[in-house]
């Protein structure tokens, strides 16, 4: 009797499920989402450690101020200026040197919203080499915005570097002055949100001009002597870049690859006397942002050049490692 009762109970329990499966019409599972189909059953996660929060609301615009802590700058070697070959760009001979700047750091201001961002930086860089001091005043502005997936943007820079007494003559030394300006515009495709995660591809064209001048120092001549053009080179530029960024609440990581081609407006008939007609740069830049506090963080930027660093022909650039303190509002 007892055995019979147990068998009945077991059969009832299993038979309920068995009958239910056979009697219930299961929905057809497709590999593609069906329009209007709404899964009522939330899939069970196998591991809770990668749990993703529900999509956050859009963040508002962020204004941040980056104050550099590492005062190292890449600039063209003094020898290239003395040899009158700075306008040749990076060629076989050594090209760049890294110096530590004195004085106030060059701050960078960023404004970022989901579909627009702007960055501006500039100031005066003073460096002291073994014998010479160099003063570079430069500024750079960049802005871009997107509508739907289409991105448009532009940037521009101006720079002027002065190196007193760099040229050594027979009796008189000469000062060197380099003035450059340029800009470019681009269009591209953007997926994502500038304030959070995004990926961007750009293609742009622009113009850059650089002018080197010298002025002799003759103590016995009291008038202001003229500055004379040492070189004047204009370039059309063509650029392409890909950039991506992933951001969480506390951290952000961006990677950007840039390629830039410079083509002389007045072509050089002889590379030995006037330099090459085409120059190329390609570099990878990463920025790691750590924001332990909501308004305060650290940004570490690393740059790796692959082809050339011809952009130093125009203005100085940060060295390959730089660290910023970021104040965000």
């Amino acid at each position, binding site marked *: 009797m007892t055995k019979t009762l147990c068998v009945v109970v077991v059969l009832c329990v299993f038979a309920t499920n068995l009958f239910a499966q056979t009697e219930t019409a299961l929905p057809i599972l497709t590999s593609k989402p069906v329009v209007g189909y709404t899964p009522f059953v939330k899939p069970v996660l196998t591991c809770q450690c990668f749990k993703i929060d529900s999509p956050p609301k859009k963040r508002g615009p962020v204004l941040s101020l980056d104050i550099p802590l590492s005062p190292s700058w890449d600039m063209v070697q003094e020898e290239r200026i003395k040899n009158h070959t700075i306008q040749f760009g990076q060629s076989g001979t050594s090209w760049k040197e890294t110096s530590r700047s004195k004085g106030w750091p060059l701050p960078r201001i960023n404004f970022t919203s989901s579909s627009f961002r702007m960055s501006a930086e500039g100031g005066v860089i003073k460096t002291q080499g073994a014998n010479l001091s160099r003063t570079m005043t430069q500024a750079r502005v960049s802005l871009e915005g997107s509508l739907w997936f289409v991105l448009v943007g532009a940037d521009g820079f101006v720079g002027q570097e002065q190196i007193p007494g760099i040229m050594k003559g*027979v*009796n*008189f030394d000469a000062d060197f002055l380099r003035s450059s300006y340029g800009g470019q515009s681009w269009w591209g495709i953007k997926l994502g949100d500038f304030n959070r995660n995004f990926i961007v591809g750009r293609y742009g064209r622009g113009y850059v001009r650089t002018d080197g001048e010298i002025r002799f120092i*003759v103590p016995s*001549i009291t008038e202001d*002597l003229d500055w*004379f053009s040492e070189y004047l080179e204009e370039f059309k530029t063509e650029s392409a870049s890909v950039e991506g960024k992933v951001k969480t609440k506390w951290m952000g990581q961006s990677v950007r690859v840039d390629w830039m081609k410079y083509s002389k407006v007045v072509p050089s008939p002889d590379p030995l006397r006037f330099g090459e007609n085409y120059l190329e740069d390609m570099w990878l830049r990463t920025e790691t942002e750590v924001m332990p506090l909501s308004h305060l963080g650290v940004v570490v930027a690393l740059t790796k050049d692959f082809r050339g660093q011809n952009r130093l022909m125009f203005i100085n650039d940060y060295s390959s490692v730089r660290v910023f303190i970021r104040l965000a509002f």
Partner: protein
Amino acid sequence: MFRSISAGFFIVAMSLVAVGCDSLSGYSPTSPSLVTSSGGLSEATSIKEIIGDAVAGIGDPKTINGVELLNIRGWFANIYPWMYDPKQSAVHPVPSLWTPGQTPSPFQMSEQCRQIREFGGGAVVLEYSPNPALGWHNYWLSTGFANGCGPFFLLYEHINGTRFIPADGGPKNMNNPNNRQVFKDDIDFMFKNVILPNQSRYVTVNGRAVIYMWSSVQMTGDFASLLEEVKKDYPVFFIGSGEGQPNNTENVARIKALDGFMEYSLGGPSNYLQAVQDYNATSISLRGYLRKLENKTGKRHIFIPTLQVAYDDTNIIPKRNNPTMYARSSDEVKYHAEMIRSNVGSVYDLGPFVVYGELPEGAAVIESQCLFATMDTPGRFVGCGTARLQILKEYFGWR
């Protein structure tokens, strides 16, 4: 025995060739050996000339086996077959170099050559006209075409004393058939009577003999086609002067047809400092234009700078009424030299060109007498004696 003697002779001969003429240039300028040394130098160069010219004369005259311009180190001295008239001169050479009322004697020309070489001159530019009425060709013949000076080329005096129409010092219309023929005749004469016989010393660019015209800008009309015609017939290389950025097709064509540029004079604005700075700026501008031209045509133009120490033509009769131009101090001349030196290799190719013996316009750098009128005064640097030459040696001398 014979082999040993031959080998010894060969070694000695090769040593002399290897040492070259430069080793002979260090003789004392005032010693009695001067003439002997000078003669030795002339003898060595003469042998080279005779052999070289004889061999080259047999061959194809399409190239000149001369001294390549771009291999010359030192400055270029313009020397003259003119009479020294003290009344019309602003520079008064020392008697050992020039006698008043006379052209330099062959000995004095040899002394001028010695001085030019001593102060770093690399080649000389002979003021020359084929016009027999001037007698300049015979003058240069009497000096062996300044054979003590080493390499040389001709300054073709194509404005003054020429057989062009008009014969005055003004521009020449080169559309005029007579002028075109005179030009061809002159080049033919120079080529056959100066360049070919002296080709081992003659300055060339890629085997083409350099002929300098001090004011090509005054050759108006279709001068370009004439230059091209002549260049087809003779291996010559024309250096012009007075050219700036062209403003019409005629000027563009002339600049294209010319092979190089070299100013004769920087003119006479009263302010020396401004003049040399203007010249520097003009040179930079011209080089920029030549770069664009080279890019279009593929032709490289040679550009030689000009160093000028002063300008003073106040003694010339009839009066020209030009302002005089003196540096206020030797530093202003050095500043001029410094600008030129820093631009050699970028704006300029080599040089500079210097008027060595142009006495009437006061630009000559020749060793001069320090007279009351030619002494330095506060705010006026004349540079009598060898002061002008010292600056040249300091900046451009290479010995």
